[in-house]
């Protein structure tokens, strides 16, 4: 299996605060990797580095054939291959759901308006929100907004999807509807990396779990590793959630 994402010995500091301390892991095509860990363990930073939202201090990151660590990286071409969904949705408040989705295909891929609209309806259907096309973000629930955000990323047909704690702001019911969309995506063969606190979801959907602690990959393995942690820290982390 060819690696879609490969981090090797990645280092990153904010000032004197070392956030990533030699992080390495890889994610193959069609794999779902769940990155877990306490707040401040560096998991969100690792995700943001993959998408060049943060520049790294050392090591290498290869994503879909792009050398992300390279200063000459063509960020826009990287962004064509990688979609990201944020905890706070970040929909554009002045645009309808449909317009939110149409924006990137028409601006970046120069798709015609009618084509972009068809595409928008297509992805909205995939996240179960076909009837909300004309709604503005503030008219949607948090879960619906997050699904629109996922649809917006999907419309660019990325090879890799990143999810940064996408359900952390949602109540259990809304979390469920967002996770279902993500599960469908995973089943459809999308390569995904998700930073999450949803242990049950990680266990069920992830082909690989990466446990981060103090800026390092502390333990990694299949979802079942959560049931039999090797390190005391993971045992502690998993145990505290139960």
């Amino acid at each position: 299996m060819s690696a879609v994402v490969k981090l090797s010995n990645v280092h990153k500091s904010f000032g004197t605060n070392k956030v990533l301390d030699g992080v390495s892991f890889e994610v193959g095509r069609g794999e779902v990797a769940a990155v877990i860990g306490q707040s401040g363990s560096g998991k969100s930073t690792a995700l943001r580095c993959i998408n060049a939202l943060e520049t790294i201090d050392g090591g290498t990151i290869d994503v879909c054939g792009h050398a992300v660590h390279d200063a000459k990286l063509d960020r826009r071409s990287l962004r064509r291959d990688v979609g990201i969904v944020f905890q706070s949705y970040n929909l554009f408040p002045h645009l309808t759901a449909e317009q939110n989705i149409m924006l990137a295909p028409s601006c970046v891929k120069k798709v015609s308006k009618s084509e972009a609209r068809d595409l928008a309806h297509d992805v909205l259907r995939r996240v179960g929100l076909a009837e909300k096309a004309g709604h503005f973000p503030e008219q949607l629930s948090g879960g619906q907004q997050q699904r629109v955000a996922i649809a917006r990323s999907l419309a660019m047909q990325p090879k890799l999807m990143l999810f940064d704690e996408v359900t952390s702001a949602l109540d259990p019911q809304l979390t469920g509807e967002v996770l279902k969309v993500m599960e469908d995506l995973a089943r459809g063969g999308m390569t995904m990396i998700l930073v999450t606190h949803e242990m049950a979801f990680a266990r069920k959907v992830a082909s690989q779990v990466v446990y981060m602690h103090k800026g390092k990959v502390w333990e990694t393995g299949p979802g079942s590793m959560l049931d039999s942690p090797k390190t005391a820290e993971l045992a502690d982390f998993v145990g505290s959630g139960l």
Partner: protein
Amino acid sequence: MTYQFDFSALWAFWPEFLQGAWLTLQLSAVSTVLGFVLGTLCAIGRSDGPPWVKFLVASYVEVIRNTPLLVQVFIVYFGIATLGIKVSANAAAVIALVVNVGAYTCEIVRAGLESVHKSQLEAADCLGLSKPQIYWHVIIRPAIERVYPALTSQYVLLMLASSITSQISAEELTAVANRIQSDTFRSFETYIVVGIIYLALSFVVRIALWLFGLVVFVRKRKLGTAL
């Protein structure tokens, strides 16, 4: 108090009042549009430009906001003449008003730009939009929507302030009034009439900007809520 009001002498001048009012509207409309463009570009420059652009814009804004409009009008009018360029009083008036309102617009729009959360730019950036596209689709539109009430006030103020250009004999409403009062000697009545016309013009400008806002800000029109 034995003053006898006599408006009858002014009736004969209504075409002139009307013409003055029309020119006031034209001056204001052109200055508003150009001032908005100038101010918005300056706001982008001041919030996101290289240091020398920031410095240039900041200097421009502070100079304009801390000197009287009348003095600015004279400087433009006589300055252009000194350079040997022939422009009409009306053109000089527009230039001065644009320069003036551009500075105020810059600060209002800049407040709007800063109100757009960084996460919005990040999201747009991650979707692969270029910087100009991000500015156009993601920053400027919500920014303007947020500060639109402040801009409306500023442009009504601009229309009223255009009366100052009567001093360089731009034939707008106040200049017309000055002439009529010296012809009729009914100064008090003349300026009461002019005051009422300005009131009406303010109303017209507000309505026009409100309607424009309804057309442009679809979300606002449909939901009625502030962004």
